[in-house]
């Protein structure tokens, strides 16, 4: 059951990510991106990291995709189709991507992961995440947690400042 589910999710991720970068209508590309992100959340559920799957669904599929769709609606005509990329640009890009993927997959297949696999004991629940976030001892993340909250505040202020109309 898990195996079938995993391969369905993998197929959704691969097909929709290819469609995201090749679709000629921008709103469709955004929708395919949303499918990729939701399938990723499904993968996290399958790995039994439930908190992370919930974060992925809320922030990525709920927040970022909505933001992208809003900006698409503000800046583009829905019916507008991109012209296909010129072969002189798309072929070198495709070659670079294929070469990089080939090198990475070759090294993944060569490396001996099976001897390093650890025995599965527990899956992290939300309580462990909370303890790790606010722990300032060993293995605690309170400093990055605070830094990222400052970063989010700064990003929010910056976004408002940049997108604000100039009063002249």
């Amino acid at each position, binding site marked *: 059951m*898990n*195996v079938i589910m*995993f391969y369905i999710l*993998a197929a959704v*991720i*691969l097909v929709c*990510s290819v469609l*995201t*970068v*090749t679709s000629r209508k*921008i709103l469709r590309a*955004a929708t395919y*991106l949303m499918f990729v992100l939701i399938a*990723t959340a499904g993968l*996290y559920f399958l*790995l*039994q*990291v439930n908190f*992370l799957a919930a*974060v992925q669904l809320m*922030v*990525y599929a709920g*927040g*970022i995709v909505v*933001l*992208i769709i*809003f*900006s*698409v609606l*503000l*800046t*583009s005509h829905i019916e507008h189709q*991109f012209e296909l*990329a010129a072969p002189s640009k798309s072929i070198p*890009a*495709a070659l*670079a*991507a294929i070469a990089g*993927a080939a090198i*990475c997959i070759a090294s*993944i297949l060569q490396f001996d*992961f*099976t001897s390093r*696999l*650890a025995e*599965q*004991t*527990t899956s*992290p629940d939300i309580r*462990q995440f909370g303890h*790790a976030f606010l722990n300032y001892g060993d293995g605690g993340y309170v400093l*990055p947690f605070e830094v*990222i909250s400052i*970063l*989010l505040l700064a*990003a929010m202020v*910056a*976004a408002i400042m*940049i*997108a604000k109309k100039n009063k002249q």
Partner: protein
Amino acid sequence: MIQGIELQHILIITTLMFFVGVYGFLVRRNLITILMASELILNSVGINFVVFNKYLYPTAMQGYMFTIFIIAIAAAEAAVAIAIIINVYRRYKTINVENVSEMKY
């Protein structure tokens, strides 16, 4: 860990997703689609962190934490990038990267 699925299979899928994102980043000419391609790249890296953590070090938390921070930074990045894109659209009436070249020199 997913019963019956090897680590390599997930890594191959995330690798393909990463390089599809790289291809889109190189080929696309619209700023928003470039942003979408970079989201694909970030997302595949996040899956990699979780999978390594889950399969190789199940008692540790570092991989999950990295993924949470990646998601948060992606959210901040998308917000600022879209604000900039809207501002560019307001000034140039286009978000095609070839037509927005005033700051190039």
